[in-house]
């Protein structure tokens, strides 16, 4: 079958194709592409042929396809200078699989049981510096909370103690380099790429320092860093220090902006929807009080909070482009996508399909979610699903449990002024993201 068997998105420019419009706001471009063309929409990024597929059946086919037919590593080459050569997509497929297994081993549920309490403690320390009432930018506040809680849980308290403002800034430099420009050429002349390389080199120094200190002192803590230090490939080879650093940057990067943007959107939507927020807060009050213990199991008894976060991830999925390079012709939806094309599955579009979600643009945490696992894909699906998905949900739920037990939040600006923005490939809230906060009194419980 030839290319003419499905529509091409309008508005392509000679040479650049749809690059400019895609870059301005990838999520909005992809939604427009779907609405104009339907479940198969072709577009062009600087000469590279992309095919957006939009239906649960297509997602299932894509996420079940083997790596040698649909390659994830090739379209994500732009992550190699972020995580490092020899790591993830910079490693041969055989090694990359073993590295993902090391990541998922380190995130197993038995390791996560103490995390809820650690996170509640970090929230308590952080909000202690807030006034009784006031206004803050919650993009910044939640970025800091996510960084502190992730670092403490995954890298241990020694690493956490060394965490300075510098880390957040370094991760920000990495994020800004993950852009549409990096899809085209991640090694091109670009000030953002130069900052990325400097930031990574500095992170290597900082993280190596912690590894060496742990080795010297013989300290042993049951965290992810330790599990990387002890991990071995199937042939018995241990990770080199450089690989350990790459693994740390990978997991911290993958879970930083994604979780902090989810947390920011969660607090904005809570402030936008006071009736739903009241329900969430009542539920939290029944399992947790400030200063008390927060058990892993308590977080399971928060269905209203969970539904709320799911709805945030539906409307504002942090990653909006999941890509695969077709290595062998791929049959889907009755057509054949030829080798060489890049398939795009977009959670942003998937979560707005009218056949799946009634009144899809309306934020409604009470809605019924589809049974089909391929119809709701904020973390992707299949063998390459985000291995951090359980940690991310635990983290966001624990942060909000500790936060909402202590404070109330309200919008400062008009509700519609808080918008999805995409300065990188990761969706976030617009700036400023101001909210009013007020400490809850005993009488309000």
């Amino acid at each position, binding site marked *: 079958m030839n290319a003419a068997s499905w529509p091409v998105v309008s508005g392509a420019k000679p040479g650049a194709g749809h690059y400019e419009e895609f870059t301005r706001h990838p999520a909005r471009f992809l939604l427009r592409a779907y609405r104009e063309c339907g479940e198969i929409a072709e577009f062009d990024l600087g000469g590279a042929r992309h095919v957006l597929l939009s239906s649960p059946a297509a997602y299932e086919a894509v996420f079940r396809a083997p790596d040698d037919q649909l390659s994830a590593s090739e379209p994500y080459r732009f992550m190699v200078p972020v995580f490092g050569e020899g790591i993830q997509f910079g490693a041969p497929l055989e090694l990359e699989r073993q590295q993902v*297994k090391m990541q*998922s081993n380190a995130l*197993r*549920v038995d390791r996560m049981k103490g995390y809820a309490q650690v996170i509640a403690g970090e929230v308590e320390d952080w909000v202690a510096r807030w006034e009784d009432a006031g206004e803050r930018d919650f993009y910044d506040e939640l970025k800091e909370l996510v960084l502190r809680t992730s670092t403490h849980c995954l890298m241990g308290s020694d690493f956490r103690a060394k965490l300075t403002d510098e880390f957040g800034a370094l991760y920000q430099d990495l994020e800004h380099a993950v852009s549409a420009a990096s899809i085209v050429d991640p090694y091109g002349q670009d000030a953002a790429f130069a900052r990325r390389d400097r930031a990574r080199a500095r992170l290597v120094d900082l993280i190596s320092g912690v590894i060496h200190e742990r080795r010297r002192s013989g300290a042993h803590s049951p965290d992810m860093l330790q599990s990387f230090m002890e991990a071995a490939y199937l042939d018995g080879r241990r990770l080199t220090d450089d690989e350990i650093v790459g693994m740390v940057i990978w997991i911290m990067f993958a879970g930083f902006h994604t979780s902090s943007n989810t947390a920011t959107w969660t607090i904005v939507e809570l402030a936008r929807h006071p009736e739903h927020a009241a329900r969430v807060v009542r539920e939290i009050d029944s399992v947790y009080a400030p200063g008390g213990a927060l058990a892993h199991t308590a977080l399971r008894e928060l269905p209203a909070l969970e539904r709320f976060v799911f709805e945030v991830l539906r409307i504002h999925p942090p990653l909006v482009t999941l890509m695969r390079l077709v290595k062998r012709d791929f049959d889907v939806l009755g057509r054949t996508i030829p080798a060489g094309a890049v398939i795009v599955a977009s959670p942003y579009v998937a979560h707005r399909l009218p056949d799946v979600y009634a009144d899809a643009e309306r934020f409604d945490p009470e809605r019924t979610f589809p049974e089909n*696992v391929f119809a709701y894909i904020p973390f992707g699906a299949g063998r390459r699903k985000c*291995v951090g998905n*359980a940690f991310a949900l635990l983290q966001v739920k624990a942060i909000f449990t500790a936060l909402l037990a202590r404070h109330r939040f309200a919008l400062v600006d008009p509700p519609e002024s808080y918008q999805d923005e995409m300065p990188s490939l990761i969706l976030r809230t617009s700036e400023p993201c101001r909210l009013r906060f007020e400490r809850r009194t005993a009488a309000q419980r």
Partner: protein
Amino acid sequence: MSWRVEIDRELCQGHAVCMDEAPEVFLVIERAGDYAQTSLLADPPPDEQRERVEAAVKHCPNRALKIVETP
């Protein structure tokens, strides 16, 4: 009416939540060149494990497990 458990191996990433919920039924094992994945220690599981297995199905972060009723 009896029942058994189906594991979707294209969805399982070995998070081991099932093993935590129902340690007598599930065991996450490593396989050469692949993710660790869950497996069944008892297939079909004994009836008295039904409640634990239901919890495992419910809390699986990848929704890789399914209870199938068999005639």
